[in-house]
Structures are given as C-alpha cells and as structure tokens.
C-alpha cells in the first residue's frame, strides 16, 4: 500500500513539475508575477511530495518490506541500520530517486532564496529547473521506478552489494549528488540570462554562491569516493581514471573554471559568455556521468546492471546539447561586453584566462579518453579502452603548469602589468622552498626512488612549496595593507581568504600525488611469529583472528609493525564475508601515520591449519594522508568563501549602474 502511495506521489510530482514549467514559461512571456508564483508553489509542493515519497521508501526499507522490488534486491534482514539507510541509494532506481530528491529540494531552495534583484529572470530559472525535474520524475515513474512491486512476498532480500557496505560509500553518493544537483542552479541562471538577454546585478551573486556550494560538495564527494576505493578494493590506489571517476572529475573542472571566470566577470566585467558556457558544461557533464553509469555503454567498475534507461538519457543529453547550442547562438550577442579601457595584457585577468585554458584542456583530454572506446569502435570497428597510462601521460604536466599559474596568478594584479614586489617574492620563494622540499623529500622517502625519477619528483615538490610561499607572501602583503589585522581581513574579504585556503589545499593534494607516485610493496608468505622487513618497517605475523563486525564476518592475519625499535601498532589484513553474498571481499589492514600508510591485504592463507601460514601483500604508501587532508582543507576554503556575503554585489555592472 505504501508502495502504491509512493508511486502516486511521484506521479503527482511529475504533473506538478510539468505544470510548473509551463506556467513559468507563460509567466516569463507575459510578465505575470502571479503565474510565476504559481509555478514556484508547484515546485515547492512537488518537493514536499518528493520528500514524503522518500520517507516512505526509508520506512519500507526499515520494515524490510520485500514486496517492493528495489528493497528485495538491495537489502536483507541482516543489514545493520546504517547500511539500511545507505541501501536507499545503493542501486539504479534508488540513486536516481536520491538525485531527483536533491535536485527538487535545491530547486525549491533556489527559488525561495532568490535575491530581489533577480526577480525579473526568476521565471526562466524556474522553467529550466522544473523542466529538468519533469524529465527526471518521468523516468522515476517509468524506467526507473523505485516502488515497483514484487510478488510473491519473499522472506528475505537478495542483499545490498557488499562492496558498498562501507562508511565511505554510504556518504560518497549523497555528497557527490549534492554537488551535481547544485550545479543545475548556475545552469538555470545561465539559461535565464540568455533568455532574458542580460546579466544583471544579482545574477553573479546567486551563481557564485551555488557554484561554490556545488564545487565544495563535489570536491568532498570525489575524495570520499577515492578513499572508498583505497580501503575497500585492496589494490592500494585511490584513482584509476575509470570512466565514471573521470565523469565526476569533469564537472569539478568546469565548476572550478566557472568560479574563476565569475571572478573576472566581477572585477572587470569580461567573460560573461564564458561563464554561461561553463555553467552549462558543468551541468551537462554531471548528467553525462550518470548516463555512463546507468547505460553501461562504457565498461566501468561502477556500472549498474544494463538498463533500458540508457537511450532515454542519451535523448535527453542530445536535446540539452542541441537546445543550449541554439539558444546560445541566437541569444549570446545580447550579453553585452563591458566598456573597459584596459584589460588583458600581462595582468591577473590574463593569468586567470590561462588557468581556464589549462583546466579546459585537461577536461578535453579526460573527455577524449573517456569516450574513446565508443569513438574508436565507430571508426576503426574495434573497441579500444583507454586506461590510466594515457591520462598519466598528460596529468602531471597540467598539474605542474597549474601550480605555476597559481603562484604567478595570485601575485599579479587586475588590469595592470605592474608586479608590485612580485618578482622579488617569486625569487625569495625559490630560496625558501628548497630546504623545505629537502625535508619533505627525506620524510616522504623520495630519495629511495633514485635516478631521474627522483629529480623530477624533487622539481615537482619544490614547485609546490614555491607556490605555497608565493601565496602566503601575497596574503601577508594584503594583511599589511590592513595593518596586519587578521580580523579586518576576515570581515572584509572572506572570499580571498577562502581562495587562499582552497589553493593551499589543492597544493597539498598535488604534494600527496607526487609523494605517492609509486608504491613500495612486497608479497610474503609468513608463518605465525615470522616477520619480514620492508623499507625499514619490520612487519610480524602475530596470529589469525576472526571477528564479527555488524553483519560481516571478518577473518584475517594480525600484523604488528615496528620501525627502528618503536612499536607502531597492529593492523589486520583479511577477508570479509557477508551473509547474503557468496564472494569474499578484501578487508584492508591500514596503519596510517602522517608520512606513510602501511597497507596490507591477505590474498591467501592456509585453510587446513586455520592460518598457520598466510600470504600478505604489504604496501608502504608515502604521503597518501596528504590527499585526505587536502580534501578537508579545500572544503574549508570553499566554506569560508561561501560565508562572504558581499562578493558578487559590488560588480562592475552594479557600480556603473549606480553611477
């Protein structure tokens, strides 16, 4: 009965969204504010109904109501409460529903919190958002119905995918989807700007806020996914350039671009049309990623079962692309360039433009690599899957160029070639970065790589520290103009402070990648009590253990780790078995310190003697922790910048309008 109710609620949402988009269209055309309000109320109502439907699904999940197909397939009686919640988004229908729910909530939020300055374009925003929502509600009641019935009633479910029963996987999809759905709002504003024919005062502020929110969530979501791969899959890495990883990375790149082009737009009024395009691309690629996941068109570790939803997504993406191209071609000339006397040349805006170019090229490379299987199949007849080496051939170059751009770009000033003390700082930073890099290289065990690789790694590390020093010097210069008052800086320019923190976070991430570029590993079969030595770590097989953790039975070898006589602790590397699933999963043993992770998995053990001997694969991964730390710092930077309430209002448009 609840399932029927849920379905009807979604159906109602679909009708409301269709009504909402139509009424918004006529509101925009006839300039009737009452029609717009009606559209806004339709969006709000559908949000409430959608939340209600989601609560119903949660309730049925906890009731173990296997009369619903989705619940039957993705949960079971043994599932603990936390993963019962996560089971909501553990497969196709549920994750589509979660996406829909979030998009609906954020759309209503965007409509209700819209600035008074944007009143004239809000009908277009509402139209765009509700048109997207209508399509997604349509899918939720047709191809991807989470409330589909199951008969006869089975006593137990098939069970949730065991790989997903992990805290990081429970939090990764909601965070990532928050990012994806938040990017729909800059897109809606971009469409509104094109339809209305102008970019106005409040536009920038709203777009900046939502893009920043989306960017922050995407950053956290992507890194949570990496962390999941690291602790769950047992191959000791966190990024494999998998098609779906790539397609979460592309929206991230475009939202990063958008934030930077909004900055130029705010300061000198240029790049309006670029912002519109970037807002579209960020949104488009978030759906492109889902298309890849859902359709199974490109093989990926993330693929859900083959589903008929694929062609629908494709049709939708094509419509989006064609529609937006036409709209842009027809309407973009109405977005007027500003009347600035001096722009570009050697200046901050040029540096930002170069950054856009670097990021854009990176996105292009990732896009080529991702769709290459399809393209090569169409042209040469043979499917060619592009894997990590291709991406790794380009990524370091782009990464290091970006680091250089961060350092120089932050020291440059707007609309002037003057480099106020900049060249001195650039040189001083070289001086300071060298000793720090040596210390880092010593603790990060870079010296062990030796030869040419060592040289390259050192260059990278030195560049990162150099950039960090340049950034900090710029910060201190700004502090000086405020008489060293940190409080004043906090009050006046949180956006700058946030950017500083986020850039430092990005540099730390690069540092983490550089230190971790190769694993130090060994495979050893050990008897109980035996030990092995790996790069100064002494690892001893203490004994075999079996434990129960929630619904999983975990068994494996306990290893103790010593270094230079000090006891670093123990870790357990083993296998886990879930009641509903036949396969054994890796249970990674991890002992982290700031500089290294001791990472162990157990590929095999002697079953007859219950683990008298066992085979361990042990990795020493330097500087991995920096990658996780960078996530927190970048997110912090994003949040600080979000707290800046004045940014976006003092635009050039605004100032000139006031004059």
């Amino acid at each position, binding site marked *: 009965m609840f399932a029927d109710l849920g379905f009807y609620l979604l159906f109602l949402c679909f009708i409301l969204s269709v009504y909402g988009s139509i009424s918004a269209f006529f509101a925009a055309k006839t300039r009737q504010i009452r029609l717009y309000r009606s559209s806004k109320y339709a969006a709000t109502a559908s949000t409430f109904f959608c939340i209600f439907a989601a609560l119903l699904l949660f309730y049925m999940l906890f009731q173990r109501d296997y009369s619903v197909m989705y619940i039957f397939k993705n949960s079971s009686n043994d599932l603990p409460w936390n993963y019962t919640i996560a089971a909501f988004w553990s497969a196709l229908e549920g994750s589509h529903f979660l996406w829909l729910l979030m998009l609906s909530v954020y759309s209503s939020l965007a409509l209700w919190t819209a600035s008074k300055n944007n009143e004239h374009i809000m009908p277009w925003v509402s139209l765009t958002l509700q048109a997207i929502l209508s399509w997604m509600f349509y899918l939720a009641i047709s191809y991807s119905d989470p409330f589909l019935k199951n008969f006869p009633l089975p006593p137990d479910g098939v069970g949730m995918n065991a790989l997903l029963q992990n805290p990081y996987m429970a939090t990764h999809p909601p965070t990532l989807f928050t990012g994806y759905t938040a990017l729909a709002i800059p897109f809606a504003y971009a469409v509104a700007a094109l339809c209305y024919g*102008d970019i106005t005062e409040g536009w920038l502020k709203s777009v900046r806020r939502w893009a920043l929110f989306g960017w922050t969530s995407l950053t956290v979501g992507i890194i949570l996914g990496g962390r999941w791969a690291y602790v769950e899959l047992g*191959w*000791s*890495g966190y*990024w*494999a350039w*998998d098609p779906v990883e790539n397609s979460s990375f592309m929206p991230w790149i475009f939202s990063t671009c958008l934030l930077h082009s909004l900055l130029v737009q705010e300061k000198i009024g240029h790049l309006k049309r670029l912002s519109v395009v970037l807002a579209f691309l960020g949104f488009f690629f978030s759906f492109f990623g889902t298309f890849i996941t859902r359709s199974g068109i490109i093989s*990926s*570790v993330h693929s859900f079962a083959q589903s008929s939803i694929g062609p629908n997504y494709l049709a939708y993406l094509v419509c989006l692309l064609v529609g937006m191209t036409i709209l842009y071609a027809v309407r973009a000339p109405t977005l*007027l*360039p500003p*009347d600035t*006397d001096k*722009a*570009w*040349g050697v200046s901050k805006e040029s540096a930002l*433009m*170069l950054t856009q*170019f670097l990021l*854009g*090229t990176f996105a292009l*490379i990732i896009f*080529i690599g991702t769709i*290459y299987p399809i393209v*090569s199949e169409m*042209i*040469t007849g*043979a*499917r*060619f*899957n*592009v*894997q*990590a*080496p*291709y991406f*790794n*051939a*380009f*990524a*370091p170059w782009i990464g290091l160029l970006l680091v250089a751009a961060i350092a120089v770009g932050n020291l440059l000033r707007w609309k002037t070639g003057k480099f106020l003390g900049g060249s001195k700082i650039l040189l001083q930073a070289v001086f300071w970065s060298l000793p720090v890099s040596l210390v880092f290289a010593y603790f990060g065990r870079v010296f062990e790589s030796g030869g*040419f*690789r060592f040289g*390259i*790694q050192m260059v990278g590390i030195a560049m990162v520290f150099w950039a960090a020093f340049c950034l900090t010097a710029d910060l201190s210069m700004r502090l000086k103009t405020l008489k060293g008052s940190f409080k004043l800086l906090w009050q006046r320019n949180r956006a700058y402070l946030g950017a500083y923190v986020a850039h430092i976070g990005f540099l730390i991430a690069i540092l983490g990648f550089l230190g*971790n*570029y*190769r*694993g130090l*590993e*060994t*495979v050893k079969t050990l008897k109980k009590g035996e030990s092995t030595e790996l790069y100064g770590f002494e690892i001893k097989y203490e004994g075999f253990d079996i434990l129960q953790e929630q619904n999983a039975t975990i068994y494996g070898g306990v290893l103790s780790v010593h270094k230079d006589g000090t006891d670093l602790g123990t870790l357990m590397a083993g296998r886990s078995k879930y009641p509903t699933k036949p396969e054994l999963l890796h249970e990674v043993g991890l002992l982290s310190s700031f500089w290294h992770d001791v990472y162990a998995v157990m*590929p095999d053990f002697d079953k007859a003697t219950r683990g008298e001997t066992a085979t361990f*694969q042990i*990795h020493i*991964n330097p500087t991995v922790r920096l990658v996780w730390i960078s996530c927190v710092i970048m997110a912090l930077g994003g949040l600080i910048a979000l707290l800046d309430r004045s940014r976006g209002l003092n635009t*050039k*448009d605004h100032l*000139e*309008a006031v004059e």
Partner: protein
Amino acid sequence: MIKGMFLVMAALWSSFGWSSLGQATALEEDLSPEQKIEFRDISKDLRCPTCTGLSILESDAQFSIQMKTAVKEQVLAGKNKAEIMSFFTERYGLWILREPPKKGFHLVAWALPLSAMIFGPLLLWFFVWRRRITAKSRSIRSTADILSEMDRMIASEKAGT
C-alpha cells in the same frame, strides 16, 4: 635538442604511475635489477583482460599471472619492449594495450590534446590579448539606459498604433 626533450618527456611520463603496483614481486625474484625495471615497464602497459581498468602488473587474476609469466620469459630471453609488445598485440590485437598506439587513427587521441596545448595559447593570444577594446560600443546597460530605451520603445509603439 628536440630529441633530448622528447626523451625527458617520455621519462617523465613513465615516472608518474599514480596507482601503486600490485603483486609482481613474487615473479620478479630471479630477475636482475635492469630486467626488473623492464618487466615492470612492460607489464604496466598491458591490460588485464578480465578486470576493469587495471594493468596485469596490478592484478592477480589467473589470466594476468599467465601473461606476466610470458612477459618474464621473454625479458629473460633478452627481448626488448617493442618486441614483447608486438608479440602481445599480434596475439590479442591492439585491445591488449592500455593507451592508444601512436599510429593510424589512434594518433588522433594523442594529436588532439597536444595540439590543444600548443595552439590554445596562440589562439588566446590572437583573440583575447591582442584585441584592444577600441570601439566604445554598447556598454553595460545602466538603469538609466534601460529606462530611456523603454521610453523609446513605448513611444514608437504608440506612434505605430
């Protein structure tokens, strides 16, 4: 000079395998240090046929271990990388590689990014930097501008009817 730069670039590219390497260690024990490097270099460029996204070096699948053993035998026999790679591509087709080969249609996958990186800055130079904003063309619409524009439109509409 240019050749030297290419060598440097090639070495750089191969130095950044961000993923860690898997359990090739057991197979490697009777290889000399140079052979070990060659073995790793080759096996990281061959895909594991039964996994998604991994090289045979990172994978413990049965198939990968067989392939790694074949690589090892040929390394011990003194073959170089090109010979071993062509041995595998003749047997399994290009599909066994992890990055597009630099020939035929597959060159596009390499040429596009490279040309974007080279010509992108040039295009930026021509279309953005070099262009001085000369015309004091249509400026930002200030509120006053919009009001006067609207007045004009209303006036013309009235005149029309």
